[in-house]
């Protein structure tokens, strides 16, 4: 791994570990990640016994060269954006570890696990109450939103 920057080294390690031991229902698109280590697409399946059972989602991860000090930019992409009180219809996710509570000790894997668990604890499929307003006015990059985390129960 000579000649790699610290962030690339770290991402390479994470990619290997995610390919070798993916969490249940999670798989990384290796073609895309190997072309550009700073851009990953991850396939995610709704967990059995939850409202999302049988659904398939795609998550996009974008990393800066300051990763893991900077959090990754994570959004749902594709034609199936989960209907969930913390997921906007443009794919943006309101999840504190993606901004304020990000720590360099977290990883792609821990972010995926948090998102699976966020989906799994959902009791009723619905969009956030401010979806229409937010999607019209927000920046393309969800990290440029000043999020207010108001409900930890779903």
């Amino acid at each position, binding site marked *: 791994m000579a000649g790699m920057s610290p962030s690339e080294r770290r991402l390479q390690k*994470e990619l290997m570990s995610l390919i070798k031991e993916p969490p249940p229902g999670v798989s990384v698109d290796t073609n895309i990640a190997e072309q550009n280590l700073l851009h990953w697409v991850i396939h995610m399946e709704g967990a059995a016994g939850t409202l999302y059972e049988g659904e398939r989602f795609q998550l996009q991860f974008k990393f800066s060269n300051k990763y893991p000090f900077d959090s990754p930019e994570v959004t749902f992409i594709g034609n199936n954006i989960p209907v969930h009180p913390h997921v906007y219809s443009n794919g943006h996710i309101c999840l504190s570890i993606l901004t304020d509570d990000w720590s360099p000790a977290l*990883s792609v894997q821990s972010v995926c696990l948090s998102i699976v668990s966020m989906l799994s604890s959902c009791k009723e499929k619905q969009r956030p109450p401010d979806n229409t307003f937010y999607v019209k006015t927000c920046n393309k990059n969800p990290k440029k939103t000043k999020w*207010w985390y108001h409900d930890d129960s779903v």
Partner: protein
Amino acid sequence: MGDEAQTTSTTVSKEITSQPNQDELILAQQRQIEKEISDSTTLVGELEPISSLNNEYSSDEVYLDKVKDLGEKYKFIRRTRPDGNCFFRAFSYANIERLLSKKEDYNEFYRISEESKDVLVSLGFQQFTVEDFYDTYMEVLKKLKNIENLDEAHKELHTTFNEQGFSDYMVVYLRLLTSGQLQKDQDFYSCFIEGDRTVTDFCHQEVEPMYKESDHIHIIAACAALNTGVRVIYMDRGTEKSCTAHDLPEGCSPTVHLLYRPGHYDILYL
């Protein structure tokens, strides 16, 4: 996002989209402030006489009295960048610095540090994220261990802590060690955490993320993790003429001395 009304009419949203996005303005201002701080202060500064503090408080009697009092007890101050990591950076630096001249203690510290990765992994930290920071941390400790000349070792320490790449890795690893300590002794530490957060929640939200400021509980756990004690000298707007000293943990013989002014820690030298 807050709970803005769902019934956004087109007229309202048109008005809003024609104005700059508030969130972006707030974040841009935050970035600007951070940039000003990083342009004007090194991560860890040179030794300066205590009297250099007078410049900051030239017309403030309360503080001037306290600087005078501080000058009677301490010779020098070493400033750190106020970026929310100042306690961890100051403590890590000052602790390694004092160990450089005590070969045996340094070796013991090195030995405990070597074992720390396995301890963290056994507490549930992910192997490869811990490894990332552990490897750099040990690389720095090893390099310093092998420098025979004390002056050169001091210089190397100073250079290392001013290179963001290394310095931030040292900060993260001490944050992880502190988090590990809190989680290992969670029965004890849970009494000090307000609200209904668990010790693990607290670690995830207030200890492990970069730039989150440190409180007593961080300091006590960090001291336990590095097996040493700290004296914190408090300098604030209180009307008494002298600064107050707190030894953490209580009753210890402190090896590292820090100056606390609301929101910030610098290193002090006897």
